[in-house]
């Protein structure tokens, strides 16, 4: 067979639009997923059962259902229960963000629990409130330990963004499908999509290594 990338390059503008769509949903889901995950993770850690139980239910529900199903459900089923339409972006963002929140909540909880009780003692002995101790003493140390796991989460979110194509959200894979169907060149089109993903993700991983080294300077 012959590779024909010219037909892909002819559609560079479509791929650029797709890349912009991928980056947009990635940014939304990264911020929403990781910050909501922190709240849920703290909730899982709480001794108050009115906080603890809903947080646990949330984690178990979203960890044990496929993201693709969640996205389809938000897109097709939720509008029946709610009085308004939901765009592909919102449906996909909800699915990916909530799923990431559930997974990252477990990372946060594990990270926080890994900090020695002596650190809580030291903070409380100075007269810190729970929130102060968490913000100033526990979380900064826990974040350092969680960084590799959180970076994995970010990479996972980036790759999960392709699931948004299931509801026809315009992102890289969706545009790749479009190019493949226009020119009957799926091999080249999907190869190009894979390469673009690698080009985005590889620097992200390198950046996380850099961050880890920087955070280790107090050792």
């Amino acid at each position, binding site marked *: 067979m012959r590779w024909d990338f010219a037909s892909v390059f002819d559609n560079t503008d479509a791929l650029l639009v797709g890349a912009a769509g991928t980056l947009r949903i990635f940014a939304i889901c990264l911020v929403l997923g990781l910050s909501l995950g922190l709240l849920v993770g703290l909730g899982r850690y709480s001794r108050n059962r009115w906080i603890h139980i809903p947080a646990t239910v949330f984690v178990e529900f979203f960890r044990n259902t496929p993201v693709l199903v969640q996205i389809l459900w938000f897109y097709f089923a939720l509008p029946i229960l709610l009085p308004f339409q939901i765009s592909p972006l919102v449906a996909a963002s909800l699915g990916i963000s909530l799923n990431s929140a559930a997974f990252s909540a477990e990372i946060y909880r594990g990270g926080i629990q890994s900090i020695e009780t002596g650190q809580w003692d030291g903070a409380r002995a100075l007269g810190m409130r729970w929130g*102060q101790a968490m913000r100033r003493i526990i979380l900064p140390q826990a974040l350092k330990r969680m960084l590799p796991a959180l970076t994995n989460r970010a990479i996972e979110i980036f790759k999960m963004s392709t699931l948004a194509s299931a509801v026809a959200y315009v992102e890289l894979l969706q545009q790749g499908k479009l190019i493949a169907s226009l020119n009957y060149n799926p091999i080249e089109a999907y190869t190009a999509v894979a390469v673009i993903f690698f080009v985005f993700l590889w620097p992200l991983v390198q950046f996380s290594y850099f961050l880890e080294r920087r955070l280790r300077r*107090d050792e």
Partner: protein
Amino acid sequence: MTILKVTGLTKRFGATDVLRGIDLEVARGERIAILGASGSGKSTLLRCLNFMERPGGGTIALDGEILGREGRTAERIYRESELIQVRQRVGMVFQQFNLFPHMTAIGNVMEGLRTVRGMPKPEAEARAAKELARVGLAEKADTYPAHLSGGQKQRVAIARALAMDPEMLLFDEPTSALDPELVGEVLAVILALAEEGRTMLLVTHELGFAYHVATRIIFLADGAIHEQGTPDEVLKNPKKERTRAFLASHKQFSF
């Protein structure tokens, strides 16, 4: 003048009675060394005094004011805001130092002033520098705990407690985690604080140090005060058999 009054303090962990009714009055300027075998409840007693552990029963009064309010059980109900006030007035130094590893020495000492007191940074920095100088570590201000020796870490921890201007200091086996050659520098700092007339309670295994620094010795056994008195009374002429046995086991290899 009494600063702290403990009445009938009890504490249990699960099925174990760790403290069985401690009565203790601490006058301002007193230095009390608490001795006892491991499991006698001495650390728990200390940790109850600044509410790192909630007392099971009995009362604790600071400056004549009984803390908490009565609940349905023997255990009193304490408001978090009340305990936060108490912890600022009663400083604590831990066996394992519990320095914050992500902050420099001066960062550790400033932390309470900044976060708890809301003191502006320049002011907190100046105060922290003063406390570090007091424990002889002015030149280590920008060093992270990982690069300090055990003795230096403990001195930073003492400076951190002092920065909050506590009315009373609790030392929970401050030298037990140190290599023998580093014990002296920490004891010298504590001795200097004693000479300033600070009120302190000290759980320790250093009998010689307790003899020199304390104004009163309390010997704890099975969660109760077994014997107490001046260092001469308790350490040189113990009246009770268990105190004698404890002291003998500690002096077994002295020369």
